């Protein structure tokens, strides 16, 4: 992405869909402008030469943390208690199509 290439309203619309956040048409331009400003600051990283540098995904030097395959019986009632909409023991979701 070149220096002057701004984030477009279409991009904002697609991002909002990917993130499942409803935004109105007027919000689209506001987001485009605000995000453009912040992304411009992020491009500061272009100055850094990272050729051959491995990305850091974990800061602790630990590997192979695993649990044994042992099942545990836990009551699920307190988890179901906080579900906003249920039908019997099913969690009710809006229609799919």
């Amino acid at each position, binding site marked *: 992405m070149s220096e002057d290439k701004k984030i477009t309203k279409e991009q904002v619309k*697609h991002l909002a*869909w*990917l993130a*499942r956040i409803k935004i109105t048409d007027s919000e689209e331009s506001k987001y485009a402008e605000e995000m453009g400003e912040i992304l411009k600051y992020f491009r500061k990283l272009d100055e850094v030469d990272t050729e051959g540098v491995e990305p850091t*995904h*974990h800061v*602790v030097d*630990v*590997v*192979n*943390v*695993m*649990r*044994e*395959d*042992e*099942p*545990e*019986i*836990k009551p*699920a009632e307190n*988890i*179901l208690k906080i579900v906003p909409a249920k*039908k*019997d*023991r*099913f*969690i*009710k*979701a*809006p*229609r*799919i*199509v």
Partner: protein
Amino acid sequence: MVETTELKVKIGLEVHCQLTNLKSKLFCSCSSDYRQSPPNTHVCPVCMGTPGSLPVLNRKAVEDAILIALALNMQISNKTIFYRKNYFYPDMPKNFQISQYDRAGGIPIAKNGSKKLEVEKIVHISRLQIEEDPGKISYEGTIETSKSAFVDYNRAGIALVEIVTEPDINSPKEARIFLQKIRSIMEHLGVSSGELEGSMRCDANISIQGGTRVEVKNISSFKEVERALNFEITRQKNLLRTGHRIGQETRHWDEARRVTISLRVKEEEEDYRYFPEADLVPLSISEEEIERQKNSMPELPEGHMQRLMTQYDISRQNAMTLIDNKALAEFFEESAVNYSHPDLLGNWIVGDLLSYLYEMDIELKDAKLMPRDLVKMLELIDDGTISGKIGKELLKEMLISGKSPDEIINQKEMRRISDSEYLNQLTEEIFSSNPQAVKDAIKDPKAVRFLIGQLMKKTGGKADPQLANNLVNEKLKTSKT
């Protein structure tokens, strides 16, 4: 216009196998034995994606994946990390799936393997990855008419391995054979049982020469694969034949209506935004660990097949069919130890038994047949108590009722009739009611068969055929004079 009959088809499969031998889920200790449970009973903060919860990897899942990788001749990665695949859907508790897939170049637990299908056919396997299963959605009516969807997260977090092939498969039939081999390997390794509902599912990428790659998702059992692929290939060929273009898209296999449907419109193309899962630390698999798994490797399908051929002297074809379904092979072996003609036994299992199971659409484990009962039935044929034909009926009955052959024979009076006095009496009756047929038979020995047939009919096929033959011919001799 495109000539479509000779167009080459390329199919790549993404096979999902649940590691059904695990006792707990992939990232939490909820019991994985969910199939008979009421909805949302096997759930905890981790597999429900409750805020603040964190995943912890199941060690056995990794060991299983190593075994599978070895069985598929794959290269095991010495260091791999987990990724998040981000997309929203109601069956996803966190709205991301923890997986190892990464289009940005992430390393799965194993890659570059292969599986030989037949003599010349090899399917290359590009990757093997560990991931979590989503929950299950049900509807009132169909997905399209249901006013709400009903989600059960008992399945969410169950450990899966995904096996991704290169597009080396050229027909729906090859796809089925490949999947059968995979199922057989999983069963021989003891990591996944294909008999359990929904334990093996797949997505398929299909492209026809001159078209674009189309992905078909939600093929919920191996039985459906051939059907779904046939539908999709025909659909695509028809499009090409009528001069249409095939667009890149994701389609959904609707099992009930047996069609693929498009669920996504173009501007809403999913972008999974794969990135590393920081809540899980890297997995480092040592040579020693691989060695340990190699040493614990059970007999694989190929070895099993060779052993069946040498140990029981059965045909290659029968051995091959038996190992495709490990339960069937085990059933064969359990029966064979008590029976003196394993070759015959093999024919019965691969032939009649298998086709009955297919007809009834059940798995062997759901049938009520015991190895000793099958052996008993074969012995009844051997000693002449029943005919082979009755044997077939008997087998069917045994599959349904689970009763022993003796019980059924006594109940249904299937025992072969060798009471000559009784049969003689029946022969008399047939002769007096069929004078013309008797005359014909006297002239033409070939017409004798009709009279014997009448006798068999009267006895429901239970007359001893040799005895029936003797009695009718004898009677004919006396009728001549």
